[in-house]
């Protein structure tokens, strides 16, 4: 078989070679829209339902066994409960009755019965029992998946080294990725700042996205080579290609070894100016290795995983445990917790948010949280309670005007009032800041600066909203550029507005981890750089080679240029000049 070259977008660096694991989560099938069946089809429909039940039972029993072994019998009880729901004498007979009596499809019968029972649970007085509605819905989801005729294999089940190939990965898929087994990721769609890209980078898994129709030629078990730097993939590589790739992998290994020397040193310029380099994390697990990887703290702790990995809203207790763990792992170094940033492309099944035409301009992040303040209040209480275990700070995402900021701040004070009344301890003087990711917030930075303790610039969304480019759409992906002069002006405005009020400004978007941008950001006066742990050594290395005074002059010059390519060229020239 001859080798086949495929070009995609390299979003997470590194060369890998391995066998393909094709991941196809529930494809939308025709039956999804089918509601009624003909009387003659009833036996077939009943048989489909029965088969789905058997398959679901087998899966659940396997899962119970696995959970017992890995987490203990106690944790398996919930799953056993789900097995019992499936086997329940009232569950299936009710569905069968509907198929026979009302001639509905198996899918609709499942939905109706599941919702009826979930509704019963939700009407119960005890909160604990109300939450069980999620178990019933989980069972329903499994049945629906199995009715769709797919294997229902979850990413967490992968237990051998593979290259993961998929159309796209949802945020809930990506949080299941285990670096031990997933060598690399290749997807049909997705751009440089899609969530798959962000997660792959943060986990250090090489990834090539957006290979398009070429994905159809890849089959289960094929040998696939990918280069996350260039975006080049080779399907069925020849022996010589494999050898060359292995040499490259060794080089990469040596290079990262050499850079790692800088990881645990402070980031100081040649003229003695020190900046703060911290990490972005998305799970408590990542916080265990942050310090070892050279982070001087956490500049962005995304809390979504807590919410996305659950079948119902995590309780204050569960959140407290997670925040406390991160605070403790960081041993007194600062941790900036970002409050829930859900909505947009990040869905929560149990919130049942309606689909939106423009999710990135819609009901998400702080907008959702201010509309449902109980969610934010619970989170803020958990953060406050955890604050005695380390140095926590909190920031609100997607602030677009001062009212939102003040409402969020009021909830923060309310949470403190509540805890004080309950006699619960929390730290004094916790800094409260905001993300700047909407141009309206950047333009009003001088007004915000009087009220916040700090800013953190989220370049990924800031670029998307400033340049009006959908960061998921490959067709316009090249318009997405943080060196766009308008974006740079906004960044400058925010940093200067902060400094005038004596407030610090950080950056937690992709730009902070790009060594090409380092001289520019240094020149603009950025105080804190937050990035994937994998970029820390690289950025610290870059800082060591720079003069701050030079960078200030460079930044002023760059801000007079009219286009992103000119700015890039100038930066490259600057970085290549002999010392």
């Amino acid at each position, binding site marked *: 078989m001859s080798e086949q070259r495929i070009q995609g977008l390299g979003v997470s660096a590194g060369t890998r070679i391995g066998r393909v694991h094709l991941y196809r989560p529930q494809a939308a099938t025709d039956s999804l829209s089918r509601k009624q069946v003909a009387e003659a089809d009833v036996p077939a429909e009943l048989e489909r339902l029965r088969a789905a039940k058997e398959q679901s039972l087998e899966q659940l029993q396997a899962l119970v066994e696995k959970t017992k072994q890995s987490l203990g019998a106690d944790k398996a009880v919930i799953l056993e*409960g789900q097995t*019992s729901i499936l086997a*329940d004498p*009232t569950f299936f007979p009710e569905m069968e009755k509907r198929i026979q009596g009302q001639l509905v499809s198996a899918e609709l019968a499942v939905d109706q019965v599941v919702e009826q029972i979930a509704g019963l649970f939700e009407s*119960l007085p*005890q909160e604990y*029992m109300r939450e069980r509605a999620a178990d019933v819905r989980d069972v329903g989801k499994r049945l629906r998946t199995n009715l769709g005729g797919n294997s229902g294999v979850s990413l967490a089940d992968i237990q051998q080294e593979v290259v993961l190939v998929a159309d796209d990965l949802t945020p809930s898929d990506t949080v299941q990725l285990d670096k031990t087994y997933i060598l690399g990721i290749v997807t049909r769609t997705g751009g440089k700042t899609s969530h798959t890209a962000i997660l792959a980078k943060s986990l250090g898994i090489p990834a090539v996205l957006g290979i398009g129709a070429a994905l159809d030629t890849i089959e289960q078990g094929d040998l696939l080579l990918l280069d996350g730097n260039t975006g080049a993939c080779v399907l069925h590589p020849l022996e010589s290609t494999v050898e060359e790739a292995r040499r490259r992998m060794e080089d990469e290994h040596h290079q990262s070894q050499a850079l790692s020397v800088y990881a645990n040193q402070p980031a100081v310029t040649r003229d003695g100016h020190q900046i703060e380099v911290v990490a972005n994390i998305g799970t408590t697990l990542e916080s265990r290795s942050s310090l070892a990887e050279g982070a001087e703290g956490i500049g962005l702790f995304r809390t979504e995983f807590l919410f996305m990995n659950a079948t119902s809203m995590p309780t204050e207790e569960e959140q407290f445990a997670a925040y406390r763990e991160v605070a403790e792992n960081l041993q007194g170094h600062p941790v900036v917790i970002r409050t829930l940033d859900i909505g947009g492309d990040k869905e929560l099944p149990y919130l049942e948010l309606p689909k939106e035409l423009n999710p990135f301009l819609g009901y998400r992040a702080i907008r959702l949280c201010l509309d449902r303040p109980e969610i934010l209040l619970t989170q803020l209480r958990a953060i406050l309670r955890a604050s005695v275990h380390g140095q926590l700070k909190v920031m609100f995402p997607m602030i677009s005007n001062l009212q939102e900021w003040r409402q969020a701040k009021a909830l923060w004070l309310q949470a403190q009032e509540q805890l004080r009344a309950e006699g619960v301890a929390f730290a004094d003087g916790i800094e409260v800041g905001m993300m700047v990711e909407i141009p309206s917030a950047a333009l009003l930075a001088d007004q915000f600066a009087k009220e916040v303790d700090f800013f953190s610039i989220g370049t990924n969304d800031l670029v998307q909203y400033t340049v009006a480019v959908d960061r998921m759409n490959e067709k316009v992906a090249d318009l997405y550029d943080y060196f766009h002069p308008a974006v740079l002006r906004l960044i400058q405005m925010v940093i200067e507005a902060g400094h005038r009020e004596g407030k610090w400004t950080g950056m937690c978007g992709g730009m902070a981890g790009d060594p090409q941008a380092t001289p520019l950001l240094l020149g603009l006066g950025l105080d804190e750089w937050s990035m994937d742990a994998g970029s820390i050594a690289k950025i610290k290395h870059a800082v060591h080679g720079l003069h701050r005074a030079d960078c200030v002059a460079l930044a002023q010059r760059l801000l007079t240029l009219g286009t992103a390519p000119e700015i890039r060229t100038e930066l490259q020239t600057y970085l290549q000049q002999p010392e």
Partner: protein
Amino acid sequence: MIREQVTIQNDQGFHVRPAQLFVTESNKFSSTIKLITENDNTVDGKSILGLMTLGLAQGSTVTITAEGADEEAAVRALVELVNSKFGEA
């Protein structure tokens, strides 16, 4: 038919784990097993959904009934299970 009244003593009432244990125990017997609440709601003792949606809290009193070949053993085992607080501390 055998019947006996018991009081739910464990903290969170008939939540998943107790309901699961009750159903597992009920399924060991061929008798028809029912659970009747104080307001005369009757559910199948082998149905976890039935048991859980009763929303029985700590302190509720219920009647367990069994009818069939092994009715006596069934009621005895189930009463014992409830009185043991389902093995919770």
